[in-house]
């Protein structure tokens, strides 16, 4: 991956220029569809865009906080890490990426939840701390199966290179691994039934209770990019076929990511919020089982191959 390619991936596709409108479309579709599922008309599909502009134009209230720099830096770090994760997605065949980029991608995908937890504690609000604690507990419960599924895929493909994993993982491993990753997706996007961390009204606004104006806008931006990056990541490992035409790959990638939005929305609209114990049990049991199957099968394939 040369510098020009990296810059293109970061700023154009699948980076900023693609991810921003796509993320607004995804969040707008999510709100609209959820309203339709509940028998309402719902907000216009452009709603997330207007929300962001409005938040950027608010003048923040001065408040005495422990660390102003930390509170301002965390949302920026979350946005930056999500852009980095987007740039690493193996959308095209061949040369993009580098060996070991799986490890970097996992690290970058994990940064925003970590930032959110830190922000919750750093804001010195009781609701922020409560939300951050919940976020920490569910992220541990979701990350073990998530990482195990990725390890299984990497083992079966015999590589830590994302494009190789996306293309070469055999289906017996890919299917249970995908099941585990899909079960972890609502946790990572903080939607129902695992919307414990930002449980609206229940713990006010969770870790973001004390954020306003521009900083809140950056958190919203990070969340928008999170949608694109996580659904995009699933889309890249869902379809192992890569054509020689970049355009076709890009369109298939965008369509597959978009197709996940109605499914996630249906799940969110059809379920109520789980309790902490129920959510962790669900993840450890079902996502854990799927990841364990993937891991065992990948070991078997590895042994058989030698």
């Amino acid at each position, binding site marked *: 991956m040369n510098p020009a390619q990296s810059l293109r991936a970061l700023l154009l596709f699948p980076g900023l220029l693609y991810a921003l409108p796509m993320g607004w479309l995804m969040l707008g579709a999510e709100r609209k569809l959820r309203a339709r599922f509940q028998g309402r008309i719902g907000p216009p599909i452009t709603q997330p865009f207007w929300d962001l*502009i409005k938040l950027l134009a608010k003048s923040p209230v001065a408040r005495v906080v422990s660390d102003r720099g930390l509170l301002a830096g965390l949302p920026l770090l979350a946005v930056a890490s999500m852009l980095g994760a987007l740039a690493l997605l193996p959308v095209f065949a061949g040369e993009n990426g580098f060996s070991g980029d799986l490890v970097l991608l996992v690290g970058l995908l994990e940064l925003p939840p970590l930032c959110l937890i830190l922000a919750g504690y750093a804001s010195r609000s009781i609701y922020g701390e409560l939300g951050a604690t919940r976020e920490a507990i569910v992220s541990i419960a979701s990350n073990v199966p998530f990482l195990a599924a990725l390890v299984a895929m990497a083992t079966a493909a015999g590589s830590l290179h994302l494009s190789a994993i996306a293309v070469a993982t055999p289906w017996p491993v890919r299917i249970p691994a995908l099941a585990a990753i899909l079960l972890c997706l609502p946790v990572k996007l903080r939607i129902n039934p695992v919307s414990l961390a930002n449980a609206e009204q229940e713990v006010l606004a969770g870790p973001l209770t004390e954020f306003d104006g521009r900083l809140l806008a950056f958190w919203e931006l990070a969340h928008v990019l999170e949608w694109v990056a996580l659904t995009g990541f699933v889309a890249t490992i869902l379809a192992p076929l890569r054509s020689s035409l970049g355009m076709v790959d890009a369109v298939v990638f965008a369509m597959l990511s978009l197709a996940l939005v109605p499914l996630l929305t249906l799940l969110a609209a059809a379920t109520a919020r789980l309790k902490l114990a129920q959510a962790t049990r669900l993840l450890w049991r079902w996502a854990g089982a799927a990841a364990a199957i993937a891991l065992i099968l990948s070991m078997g394939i590895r042994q058989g191959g030698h």
Partner: protein
Amino acid sequence: MNTPERGLLYKLVERARRRSAWLFHLNAGSCNGCDIELVTCLSPRYDVEQLGVRLEGSPRHADVLCVSGPITRNTRAALETVYAQLAEPKVVVAIGSCPASCNVFDGSPVIEGPLDTIVPVDIYVPGCPPRPHSIIEGIGRAIELLAEGRTVAGGVR
């Protein structure tokens, strides 16, 4: 009214404020009647989310402060804190007769209302309780004031 010529960015922000008003609801000693009617506005029958309105958990995220109840002695400090936590520009909507006039509680030693003696109020929605239609109209007018910058807190009477 002649308004000065505004730039593109200003128009964009005004449009965003018109389409994305987030609500914070404060119960200042209300009997819960107005609270039920306010939450009804979000239900499928009235669906105020069509206006981009969202009920927010934190006052720091909100643009519109909806107050119900006659402001009891115990809730006055909370009201003042919450009002100060809303970021500018903000509007205040008094839901029901209680915040407007203290209603039947007028003269009680534990009532500190009406609301406009404590914080500036932009819109009054009368009724005991008001119907969801009236509340939506009140919120709609509040959004107009918010977008045009004609709020009482901003110095306009």
